[in-house]
C-alpha cells in the first residue's frame, strides 16, 4: 500500500487510528500496530511477508545470543552470521539476477536462476535489522527480549517500505514508554499533509510534465528541453522522496513515535559533501556508521573506504550499472572536494558554490534516471551542446510557461523559504502565545493542501513512490 492512495487515506488510516485510540493499553496498542502493519505490507506483497518475519526472527535470535555471550566467540560469530544472512537475503532477492546476467555476458555462458520481483521495502528493512544487530553488539542498545516488539520495529508501516531507515536504538524506549499527545498528533497531521501535498500536487505533476518535455527517445529533444526535463525530474525525486519521509515522520508522530529527519533542504547545499549530509540522511549515516567508520574512516585507507561506501551507495539504489556509475561519480566529486575543492568553495561567493553543487547534482540525476548508460550520455550531450540540437522548441516554451506556477512552487518547496516566512509571521505575534500563525494560518493551509490533494488523487492513476523500487 502507498500513503498517497485513496484506499490508505480513507480506509486504512481511519481504521488504524480508530482501533489504536479506542484502546488504552500499551501492549494492545503495540499489537494493533503490528497487525495493521503486517496487513499494510501484505496488501500488495502477500507472499514476502514470510521473508519479513523470517528476517526479523533470525535477527532477534542472534541479537539475544550476542547479548548472552559477551566475551565469548559466540558473540562475534552471531554478529557475523546475522550480517551475512541479511546480506545474503538482500543479495539474493535484489542482485542475483544482475550478477548472473553479468557473469553470463562476461563468460558467454547462459546460467539461469530463479528470479523474483523485488520484495517491497527489502532494502530498507534489511538495513534496519543490520543496524539493530550491530548496535546490540556495540552495546549501544539492549537486545529486545520480545520477538513481537522487534517485529513491531521492523514492520511498523510508517517506515516499512521506503524509509527512513530508523535505528532501533532511536525507538527502543518509545516501544514501551511512548507518550501519545495532542501536540504530537497535531504535528503528525500537519507533517503528513505537507508530505501528501509534496507528493500528490507537486511531484506527480512534475513527473507528468517531465515525461512530456523529454519524450521517450531523445531524437527531438532541444537543449532547453533537456535542462527543463532534468530540472523537473530533480524536483520530482526530491519532493517525492522527502514527501514520503514527511508522511512517515508525520504518521509516526500520530502514534507517539519521533523519527529523525531524513532530508534537510539538500538543494541549497554549497558543496556535494554538504549535499550528502542533507540528502537521505538515514541512508548516508547508515553507510557512515556501519561501513565507513568500521573500515577505518578517514584515519586509514580513506580513499579505499570512500570508494567502497560510494560503490555500495550506488548499488543499493538498484541492481544496475548506472547506479554504480552514479555512486562512482559522487566518489570522484567527494574526493575532489576533500583534496582541495572544498577550500575553494568556501572562499568563493556562496551563490557560485550553490550553483556548482546544484549542477553537480543535476548531472548526477541524469545517470540516476537512465538505466541505459548510452542514453544518459546522449542526454548529457544534448544538455551541454555536444550533440547539435536546437536551443529550444515551441513545445518547451509552451510547457515551461504553462507550468511556470508549478515549477516556482516546487522550487520554493525545495528551500526553507516557507518555514522562514512562517517563522517571521509567528514571531510578530509575541503577545499571544499560540498566535494567529499557529491557530489559523497553518491549519488553514493544511486543510487547503489536504482537500486539494484528495481531489488530485482522485484524478491520478496509481502512482507508486519512486523509492519503492529500491
Amino acid at each position, binding site marked *: 500500500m502507498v500513503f498517497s492512495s485513496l*484506499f490508505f487515506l480513507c480506509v486504512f*488510516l481511519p481504521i488504524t487510528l480508530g482501533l489504536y485510540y479506542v484502546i488504552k493499553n500499551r501492549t494492545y496498542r503495540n499489537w494493533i500496530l503490528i497487525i495493521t502493519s503486517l496487513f499494510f505490507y501484505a496488501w500488495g506483497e502477500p507472499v514476502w511477508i514470510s521473508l519479513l518475519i523470517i528476517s526479523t526472527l533470525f535477527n532477534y535470535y542472534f541479537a539475544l545470543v550476542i547479548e548472552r555471550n559477551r566475551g565469548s566467540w559466540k558473540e562475534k560469530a552471531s554478529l557475523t552470521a546475522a550480517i551475512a544472512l541479511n546480506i545474503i537475503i538482500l543479495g539474493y532477492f535484489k542482485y542475483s539476477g544482475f550478477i548472473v546476467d553479468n557473469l553470463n555476458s562476461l563468460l558467454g555462458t547462459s546460467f539461469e536462476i530463479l528470479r523474483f520481483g523485488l520484495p517491497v521495502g527489502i532494502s530498507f528493512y534489511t538495513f534496519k535489522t543490520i543496524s539493530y544487530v550491530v548496535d546490540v553488539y556495540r552495546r549501544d542498545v539492549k537486545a529486545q527480549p520480545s520477538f513481537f516488539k522487534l517485529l513491531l520495529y521492523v514492520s511498523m508501516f510508517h517506515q516499512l517500505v521506503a524509509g527512513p531507515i530508523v535505528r532501533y536504538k532511536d525507538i527502543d524506549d518509545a516501544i514501551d514508554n511512548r507518550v501519545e499527545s*495532542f501536540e504530537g498528533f497535531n504535528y503528525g497531521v500537519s507533517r503528513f499533509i505537507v508530505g501528501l501535498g509534496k507528493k500528490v500536487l507537486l511531484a506527480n505533476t512534475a513527473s507528468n510534465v517531465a515525461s*512530456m518535455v523529454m519524450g521517450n527517445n531523445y531524437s527531438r529533444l532541444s537543449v532547453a528541453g533537456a535542462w527543463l526535463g532534468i530540472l523537473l525530474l530533480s524536483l520530482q525525486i526530491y519532493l517525492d522522496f522527502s514527501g514520503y519521509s514527511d508522511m512517515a515522520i508525520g504518521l509516526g508522530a500520530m502514534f507517539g513515535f519521533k523519527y529523525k529527519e531524513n532530508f534537510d533542504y539538500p538543494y541549497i547545499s554549497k558543496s556535494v559533501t554538504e549535499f550528502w549530509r542533507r540528502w537521505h540522511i538515514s541512508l548516508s549515516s547508515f553507510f557512515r556508521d556501519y561501513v565507513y567508520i568500521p573500515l577505518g574512516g578517514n584515519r586509514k585507507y580513506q580513499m579505499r573506504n570512500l570508494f567502497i561506501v560510494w560503490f555500495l551507495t550506488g548499488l543499493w539504489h538498484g541492481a544496475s550499472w548506472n547506479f554504480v556509475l552514479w555512486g562512482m561519480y559522487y566518489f570522484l566529486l567527494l574526493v575532489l572536494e576533500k583534496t582541495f575543492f572544498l577550500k575553494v568553495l568556501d572562499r568563493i561567493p556562496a551563490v557560485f558554490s550553490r550553483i556548482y553543487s546544484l549542477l553537480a547534482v543535476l548531472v548526477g540525476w541524469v545517470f540516476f534516471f537512465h538505466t541505459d548508460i548510452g542514453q544518459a550520455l546522449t542526454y548529457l550531450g544534448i544538455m551541454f551542446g555536444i550533440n547539435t540540437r536546437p536551443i529550444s522548441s515551441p513545445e518547451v516554451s509552451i510547457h515551461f510557461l504553462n507550468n511556470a*506556477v508549478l515549477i516556482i512552487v516546487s522550487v520554493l518547496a525545495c528551500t526553507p523559504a516557507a518555514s522562514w516566512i512562517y517563522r517571521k509571521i509567528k514571531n510578530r505575534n509575541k503577545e499571544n502565545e499560540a498566535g494567529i500563525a499557529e491557530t489559523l494560518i497553518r491549519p488553514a493551509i493544511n*486543510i487547503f493542501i489536504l482537500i486539494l490533494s484528495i481531489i488530485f488523487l*482522485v484524478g491520478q492513476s496509481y502512482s507508486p513512490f519512486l523509492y519503492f523500487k529500491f
Partner: protein
Amino acid sequence: MKKLRWDSVIFIILITILGLTNLLNFNKPTVSVLENRALKPKPELTINGLLTGDYFRDYEDYYSDTFILRDKLVKTSKDFQKAMAFLGPGITIVQSVDDIQKPQENNLPDQSDKNIGNEDNDIIPDPASTPSAQPDTSDDTGQTGQNGENASPENDEMPERDFGDDPNIGYYLVIDGKAVQIFKFNKESFEYYAQILNKYREMLDDSVKIYSMIPPTAGEFLRLKKYAGITDSQNDALSYLESLLDKDIVTVNVYDKLNRHKDEYIYFRTDHHWTALGAYYAYVEFMETKGEKPLSLEQFEKIDLGDFLGSSYTKTLDKSLEKNPDSFIVYKPYTKHEFFKYDGKGEHKADVIDMKYKDSLTDKYLTFISTGGSTWSVIRTEVNNGKKLLIIKDSFGNAIAPFMLSHYEEIYIVDARFYNKNVTGKNIIEFIEDNKIDEVLFCIYMEDVNWHKFMSGVEGLLN
C-alpha cells in the same frame, strides 16, 4: 497545546466520512461519463490474485475509480490545473489521458454491461499474436488476447492505444477551443507503410487497383504563428511516402483537397476525426482521381444531430472544448442498400448511418457505419455495375464509406484491428480474390500510419 487543533479534527472527520460514504455507496458507477470510459470493475478474489498481489492493486484501482463524486473531482482537478497555467500562452499540449479507453466503435448501449466486464482485457493486436496469426485457435473465439482471458467474438473492443509504443503520438494541442493532434514525422513509420502496401501490390493480381488515402491530422490546417514548427509538415511526409510507393499504387491526394477547404468545417474541434464534410471532400478527391464524377453534397439528406463532444475532449477534458461543443451533421445516402456485419457468431444487419447514437453526447461518431469489432462487413447496393470495393481502414474510413454507395455494387469494409482469419478462413488476399474485389482503398489516418501496432495489424492481414 492541550487539545486537537481544528485541522487535525477536520483531517480525521474528512478521511472517516470519505471512507464511510464510499463504503455505504452500494451503487457504484461502472462507467465514467466524463472520461467516456469504463471504470475498473471490482476484482474477483482468487488465490492467484492474492498471491501475486494483483488483487490488491486492482482493488485500489477499483477503489479510486469508484470514489464518491469522482467525475466532479476529476474535473475540478483539471480545472485547477488549467487555472494554474495562467502564465501560459493559452495553448496547452496534453498527453491524452490514456486510461482504459472505452472502445470507440462499439459499446452498443444494449450490451454495455458486458463490455465493461471485459474492459481490462487490453486486446491489443500484438504483431506476434494477431488473431489471424494464431494457428491454434480453431474455434471461433478468435479475438483472444495473449493474456489468455477469453473474449467472445462479438466482444468488439477497440484495442487500447499503447502510447509507449511511439513517443511521438498521443499528444494534443489545445488552442482556441480546438484540439488537434500533433504530428511528428517518423521516417520509419512511413517506410513501413510503403513496405506493407508494396507487399499488397506484389501479392494481388494486377487487375486489382490499389488506392492509398491518408487523412492528415487537423493540426496541419491550423494557422500557428508563434508556434509554427510544433507539428511537422504532413505534406512533406506524404511526398516522401509517394516516392516509396510502387508505381501501380494510386495515391489519393486528400491533403491538397482538404487544404483548399481548410476554412470550412472539415474537422471536429473536440474530436480527432474529420467531419462528414471533410470526408465528403476526400470522397470527391477519390472519385476525381479515378476519373469518375462525384455526387454533389446536395443530393444527400442532411441531418443535424446536435452537440458533440468527441475523443479529444474526453482525452483532454479541456474546459474550452466543453464550452464549445461541435455540431454533428450526417449525410444520409439515398442509394438503396443493405449493410451486414460478420463476426464469429454470424451475420448481423446494421445501418450505414446508425441513429442509435444520435442522442449520445460523446459517442456520435459511431453513427457512421459502426462496424464494431466485426471481422468484415459489406454494403450491398442496388447499383448493378458489378464494381466491388474493399476499404481497409481505421475509424476515418467510417465517415467516407456512406458517400460511395452509388458507385459500387458491393463495398467491403475491413478494420485491420478486428479482422479474424478464423472467421473467414482466409487471409485478406484470398478474401479479395474470392469476393472478386477489383479496387482496394486504404484509408488510414496519419497518426495510425505513425502507430506501428496499427500498421503491423494491416500487415498481419496478409498472413
